[in-house]
């Protein structure tokens, strides 16, 4: 996994609550058995005017001019500003894969769906939870300021606005370490093989029916 430490990046605002993972990456693209290449289909149904299918050349498809990510001023955005309950719905990890592939490294929202947030951490994307008023403030600041950037520092757990205002955010210690160092958590878990084996041996005695098939 690619590490994430600090980023000074362009912000794109997506002003809707309850953005679900079906919207982030529609199901027809889940038929790919790869982890990469989902970026052109991120928010496919909002982004293009036609119906997208796997394998289409997206550079030739008609863009929806009303969709925020299609506006020239947001090209190259690495930070997505979002509303409540971002990433709800399906557990598809294709959602963060598509966001990463598109270029997003940070999503800021008042709240995230649990599985989505977890999937982000495992794919080099930092989900930042800020209080709802702060997020509303950021939305208000982004709109009138072309080229609006935020500085996001995972080590310090701070988001800094262009005016120098600092918002602190909380992040789980273990996830922070994994993201800062780009760690593969399977290798970390496998450092505890003996403990897992001992646990399993005990369970076999206590709940033998779980091991009979």
């Amino acid at each position, binding site marked *: 996994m690619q590490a994430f430490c600090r980023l000074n990046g362009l912000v794109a605002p997506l002003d809707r609550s*309850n953005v679900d993972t*079906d*919207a982030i990456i529609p199901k027809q693209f889940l038929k790919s058995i790869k982890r990469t290449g989902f970026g052109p289909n991120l928010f496919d149904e909002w982004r293009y005017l036609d119906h997208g299918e796997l394998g289409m050349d997206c550079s030739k498809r008609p863009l929806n001019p009303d969709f925020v990510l299609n506006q020239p001023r947001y090209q190259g955005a690495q930070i997505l500003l979002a509303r409540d309950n971002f990433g709800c719905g*399906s557990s598809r*990890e294709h959602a963060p894969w598509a966001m990463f592939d598109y270029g997003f490294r940070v999503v800021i929202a008042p709240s995230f769906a649990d*599985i989505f947030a977890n999937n982000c951490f495992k794919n080099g994307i930092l989900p930042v939870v800020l209080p709802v008023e702060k997020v509303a403030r950021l939305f208000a600041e982004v709109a009138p300021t072309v080229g609006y950037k935020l500085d996001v520092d995972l080590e310090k757990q701070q988001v800094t606005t262009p005016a120098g205002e600092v918002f602190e955010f909380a992040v789980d210690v273990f996830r922070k370490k994994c993201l800062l160092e780009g760690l593969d958590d*399977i290798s970390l878990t496998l450092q505890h093989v003996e403990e897992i084996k001992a646990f399993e041996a005990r369970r076999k005695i206590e709940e033998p029916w779980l091991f009979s098939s």
Partner: protein
Amino acid sequence: MSEKTLYDKLWDRHVVRCDDSGTCLLYIDRHLVHEVTSPQAFEGLRLAGRQPWRPGANLAVPDHNVPTTDRSEGIADPLSRLRVETLDANCADFGITEFAMNDIRQGIVHIIGPEQGATLPGMTIVCGDSHTSTHGALGSLAFGIGTSEVEHALATQCIIQKKARNMLVSVDGQVGVGITAKDIMLAIIGKIGTAGGTGYVIEYAGDAIRALSMEGRMTVCNMSIEAGARAGMIAIDKKTIDYVKGRPYAPSGALWGKAKTDWQSLHSDSNAHYDRVVHLDADSIQPQVTWGTSPEMVVAVGDCVPDPATELDPVKREGMQAALAYMGLTANTPMTEIYPETVFIGSCTNGRIEDLRAVAEVVKGHKVAANIKRVLVVPGSGLVKQQAEAEGLDKIFKQAGFEWREPGCSMCLAMNDDRLSPQERCASTSNRNFEGRQGQGGRTHLVSPAMAAAVAIIGHFVDVRTLEV
């Protein structure tokens, strides 16, 4: 404090180790696998030269991409076929049991787990699918995970997690006649919202929950994820134990007795602490219909489409306006004056035998209404299909003009050929009314099986309690 909730007990039983920050390795008893979220995980194992930790703990089934029409010629769509063949190959390579497409036991992963006894009380269960919460109905701790975690579970038999908070949703008293588990759950989501359960594991309790059949409890737990919860669960009682007994993967003989004794201890202590408690008055729950593009956008069938003008929060108001525009609805329209063109009966929420029986009861002797273009009935598994046919339900459906299909996810997410056209309006027994969920531009209204059946024969949403059938 020694008093514990059911979640506390299940959690404590499965913790292998924790670090100082409370991040724990949680042992997984059962891992269910389907074709959409697993290929990249198996590929990861291969690249790292790893093997599944305990192949016998895994059970795989293709469900999302399988056709629900004749399967004798295989899968026509090459991309769907590749997914299903990839699952077949991965299971063969890694020694994992799979109920392949033409196995009678094939079906939606969350239907077949309980059906086979592969889901047992007291287990931890994971699957790369958010509706894994379904299995909590059997008193297990079950949650959906992403593909990286699928790989982690395969490789280590554990997942890394921090403990969630405890929430109790108590549905007090008894529901009225004609009110189903689906109505109860939609009412709960309408009350707490789609993010109301975020960060929590919900335990459902109260007389109305206890009174539900096991299948009804599965419907409730299934949609925990629509309330944002990590998992949903219901304490084990006699119904749970009777349901599990004799199923193919359930313990038998001496082990059955041991298991049963153990399971009987799996309920919350009477003074256990919950971080949040929500009460619903069962008696006040009406038949529910969603009007918008999020499951929380739900009203009673006797109500009207809500008016955004009455919403004070600007973000919510805009959300409502966008939903009405997408759904092609006008504020203040009575729900009973909305006319779907399609009805979908199935999914892991409502694709079990009792659901099909409830549909048959309403439609028996009736025909599809003139404005209804198609009604799909998709059983949740091959065994559900077989049972329905043994009871003659398929004949009732066919006589009414419904299509009787092969088991799978079908139009719940429209990954196979079953999908809505743009603007097509559907009464659906599934769980998500998101934009495009059932086909790009499609308009989904979530309802109970009885309501879906009533729509099919009446042509619009209707209070099923007033039907003369």
